[in-house]
């Protein structure tokens, strides 16, 4: 199972990296922004502005990293917690089994 997950993650990484190699000279701008440009091209004026905008690209990337970190943190905590509990349960069952064997020898 572990090697299978490793393969799946490698494949996901490969699919992500491939475009950088194949179309390396592209801009890689966001598709959301491209759609906005198309709408702007039609002469549309947005009627509402964001209440707050990150003042710079650095602040924006800070908040995006925060979003990813919060999500990844909880995901890792959960999997780690369950893995630990499972191992603990396995140990308890094994030691019970050993005790039972000892008694069987009496």
């Amino acid at each position, binding site marked *: 199972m572990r090697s299978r*997950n490793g393969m*799946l993650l490698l494949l996901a990484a490969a*699919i992500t990296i491939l475009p950088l190699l194949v179309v390396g000279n592209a801009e890689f701008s966001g598709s959301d922004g491209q759609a*906005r440009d198309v709408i702007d091209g*039609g002469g549309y004026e*947005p009627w509402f*502005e964001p209440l707050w905008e990150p003042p710079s690209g650095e602040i924006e990337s800070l*908040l995006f990293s925060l979003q*990813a970190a919060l999500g990844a943190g909880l995901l890792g905590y959960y999997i780690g917690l369950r893995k630990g509990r499972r191992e603990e349960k396995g140990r308890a069952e094994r030691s019970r089994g050993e005790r039972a064997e000892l008694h069987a020898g009496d």
Partner: protein
Amino acid sequence: MHIMEGYLPPLHAVAWTVTAAPFVVAGVRRIQRVAEDHPETKLLLATSGAFAFVLSALKIPSVTGSCSHPTGVGLGAVLFGPNVMAVLGTIVLLFQALLLAHGGLTTLGANAFSMAVVGPWVAFGVWRMASGMGRSLAVFLAAALGNLATYCTTSVQLALAFPDPATGIGGALVKFLSIFAITQIPLAVVEGLLTVVVVNLLMQYSRDELSTLSFAPRTASRAKVVGAE
């Protein structure tokens, strides 16, 4: 799939908000029920939301030479049913609208409808139909197609709001689909793969919770222990 703040005419903004709202209300009720009936699965529910949090923060390059992001809503949809993701997905969108100026409050309804309603429902439907094909393949297809459906929905929403002067809604749809859908295909595959990885880990370490949610059958070893007692 984020329609930017102010980029839907007021009538459209209101209509999509009204359309998405009942799903969010149903989702709140469903979350309350899950928390009451199976409190032991609350942390897994939060983790499903966390998965959507990470994935929707990742801008990933695509073969079209542009970037887009996965949504991560397929996982929670197959585990807990689609409605819970209406709530969790909307929370993600609200975070991005308020702190990142990504999406917006006036477009929250439309964005919630595509990412937090259509995506999870398509994922759930595909999961139900494909579950005979084996767990991994069904989860993969559910997450990938749910992701694609979200971006197709965004294209439809924009085409309805901004029909092409010459070719109408159909022409505009082709235009927006060409921006969103093709870019999204490799990303949908990535999202499918990552969702399968997480489900594999859950099957290994959280089997009891998955059984409670009737996602997985009870383990054989557990049945044996019960039988021996």
